[in-house]
């Protein structure tokens, strides 16, 4: 553990985790400065609290002198590592660390870290729930809500911290040392160049870089890039697979989720597949990963079953509806603003058919442009906001004007090819055509269910 009292520390980027890091450092007696490129107005709501704590605040850019005469620099996940200022500071030999790395140096107890291109949040929430229900003192944080530094004060030597970590955060880790590291999958995402895909994959692999032979790493055997990480880990490797049995880990066999702790140990039946409340093939992978990780953390199969069966995906929040002709339908009716829609889009790597529209809330839909270009194949507009959406997003993505949800579902279902996704994440409120977002979500689910009857080939 490092001594912070009296040290001069600069926190770059005043996001949620930057703010938490600054407050933590200040309480440990450091002289803290915060610097952000955004204007004072944009940050107005956080600045008074910082000033009250005696933290210096710089806004509207970083002065070069700000980076001088510091003992430590902590950067937020959103801040790129290759800015000229940081490059220069590093050349002076100053330690530059991320918020996750800072937290890792102070967090007590053991860490269970989860990364991957898709499914991190669900799996982290599920593992947190399993551990909690089993009576393990559990803290859940990282990308999922609470910044990791904010967990430090509550952690004890008995605590398991279940963390969702992104490749951004892993890029700047050194001593971050989870006892159990999970890589759910590594997919090219929106990265085009193979070179950058490989560096993205290597960033994910940093999750087990500090591990030793007493630790565990849990990998997806069905995802080529994630499985290949096994060759570079010194920890004990556990696999999970939907498709076949593994030496040690979790898999699906005769309609059951099963687990085996080692090659010569008996196979434990954890729970029947049809009792898993989360639907969709990728969610089975997430549950298998959670089963394997929780078992390794010492929770019994029975406790895992109870917790998983009780775990409910939140209705209308990226809720899986059905798979028809290989096309998966998701209901995110709760996405009533552009931000929530952006998050929903980001949950899928590509091939999205997105239903947008409803009652406009004076939103700026152009914020979605980059995501739409990278991941969305077509947009289907509904409701009174349709005209505005179409004019703002013209040329970004192909847009079909559908007016009603009924027509949008039909059009999207016939356009989507197997492996693609139809997503209702409208970025608007529902009041022009529906009572509320719950009503809109239910109508969507009914429309999808009707289509389901048409085809006998769909998988469960």
């Amino acid at each position: 553990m490092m001594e912070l009292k009296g040290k001069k520390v600069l926190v770059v980027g005043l996001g949620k985790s930057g703010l938490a890091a600054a407050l933590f450092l200040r309480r440990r007696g450091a002289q803290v400065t915060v610097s952000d490129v955004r204007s004072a107005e944009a940050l107005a709501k956080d600045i008074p609290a910082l000033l009250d704590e005696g933290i210096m605040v710089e806004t509207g850019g970083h002065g070069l002198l700000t980076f001088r005469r510091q003992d430590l620099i902590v950067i937020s996940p959103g801040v790129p590592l290759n800015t000229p200022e940081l490059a220069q500071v590093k050349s002076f030999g100053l330690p530059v660390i991320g918020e996750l790395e800072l937290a890792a140096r102070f967090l007590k107890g053991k860490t269970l870290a989860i990364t991957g291109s898709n499914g991190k949040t669900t799996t982290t929430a599920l593992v947190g729930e399993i551990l909690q229900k089993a009576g393990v003192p559990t803290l859940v944080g990282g990308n999922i809500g609470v910044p990791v530094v904010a967990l430090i004060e509550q952690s004890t030597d008995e605590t398991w911290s279940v963390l969702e970590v992104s490749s951004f955060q892993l890029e700047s880790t050194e001593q971050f040392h989870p006892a159990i590291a999970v890589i759910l999958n590594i997919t090219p995402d929106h990265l085009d160049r193979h070179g950058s895909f490989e560096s993205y994959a290597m960033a994910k692999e940093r999750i087990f870089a500090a591990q030793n032979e007493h630790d565990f790493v849990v990998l997806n055997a069905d995802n080529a890039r994630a499985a290949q990480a096994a060759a570079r880990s010194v920890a004990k490797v556990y696999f999970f697979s939907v498709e076949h049995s593994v030496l040690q880990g979790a898999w699906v066999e005769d309609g059951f989720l099963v687990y085996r702790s080692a090659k010569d140990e008996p196979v434990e039946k954890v729970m029947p597949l049809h009792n898993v409340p989360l639907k969709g093939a990728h969610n089975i992978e997430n549950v298998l990963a959670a089963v394997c990780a929780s078992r390794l953390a010492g929770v019994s199969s029975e406790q895992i079953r109870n917790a998983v069966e009780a775990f409910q995906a939140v209705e209308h929040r990226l809720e899986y509806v059905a798979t028809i002709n290989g096309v998966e339908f998701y209901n995110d009716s709760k996405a009533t603003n552009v931000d929530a829609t952006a998050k929903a889009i980001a949950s899928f790597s590509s091939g999205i058919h997105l239903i947008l529209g409803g009652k406009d809330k004076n939103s700026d839909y152009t914020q979605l442009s980059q995501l739409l270009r990278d991941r969305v194949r077509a947009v289907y507009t509904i409701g009174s906001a349709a005209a505005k959406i179409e004019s703002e997003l013209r040329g970004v993505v192909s847009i079909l004007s559908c007016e009603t949800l009924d027509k949008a579902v039909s059009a999207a279902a016939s356009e989507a090819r197997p492996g693609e996704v139809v997503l209702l994440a409208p970025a608007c409120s529902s009041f022009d055509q529906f009572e509320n977002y719950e009503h809109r979500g239910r109508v969507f689910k009914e429309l999808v269910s009707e289509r389901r009857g048409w085809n006998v080939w769909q998988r469960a």
Partner: protein
Amino acid sequence: MAARVGIDKWMFFTTLLLVVVGLVMVFSASAVVAQERYNSPYAFVGRQAGWAVAGVLAMLFLMHVDAKVYKSTRFIYSALAVTTLLLVAVFFFPGSHNTHRWIRFGGLFTFQPSEIAKPVVVIFLAWFLHTRLDQMRDWKHTLLKAAAMPVLFMLLIVKQPDLGTALVIAGVAAMLLLLAGMEWKYLGVAAAVALPPLIALLVLVPWRFKRLLAFWNPDLDPQGAAFHINQSLIAVGAGGLTGRGYMEGMQKLFYLPEASTDFIFANIAEELGFIGSIAIVLLFAVFGARGLRAAFRTQDPFCRLVAFGITTTILLQAFFNISVVLSLVPTKGIPLPLISSGGTSVFVTLASIGILLNITRTAE
């Protein structure tokens, strides 16, 4: 969330271009010999074209078959059984050039089983290894079992004898094992085990040893063992920058042996020159880049191994073949994929590319 993208058009058209160039050059290289032997300049190229058309049809069909269907145990066992049977059956057919490489039905239809062994080894290893990526350090249960079938095939093929094809299979198998996570030290062990018999095959078989000596010193026996390679180098040199022109090559006129098969690249160099040769190399480079791209972008471990194996099989053969023509390695009979005359080779290669093209659809 495997997004489906279209078939890789670069790979598709590169393949067709290579096949067309192949037919055009096979005609040029074989017309005179065919006229002499069969009284028709089209005798060889006609048969080759038939196989190529069948191959393209097979490719068009297989590129619409989901590559994951080959994961089935029944398919794998059948493929292994049929291949073993064919590799044994060749010994019961009359030989040609003192070798037993072909199965013949009447005078028309001949078939070379060692060609089919190459993709079968790739698919078998992909199937066997994709569920054992966590067991690659277990040499007894994983590595030895994985090696058994390929080694059996290699032994049968060496017996034909066709050392070149056996070496291609060994190279591809090694690369697949390494991709699946085998440690390099095991490759060292395998090489140490294989080296004594390999040296024995090279030194104790008189014509191989002579070719080896000829490789080191081409002036030793220019009319005998070094004849192939000298004629080949003469052809390449005669081509110069722009070549003698299509159909204008001299070396194929009974000087350059196997002008339409193993040494067709020499004929290309002579007639189309350095520029034409480089164009062929570039086509293979584009093909290889697209194949590896598919391999590293598909997310299914089985498909990744299959795509990698098929791509390296083709690249390795092209590399060896061109190296032989340029006398960078000793003479070994390995066809230039898609271009050399040889019906089974072009058919099986196109069918494998069909499988590869299907995988490109799942490569985001």
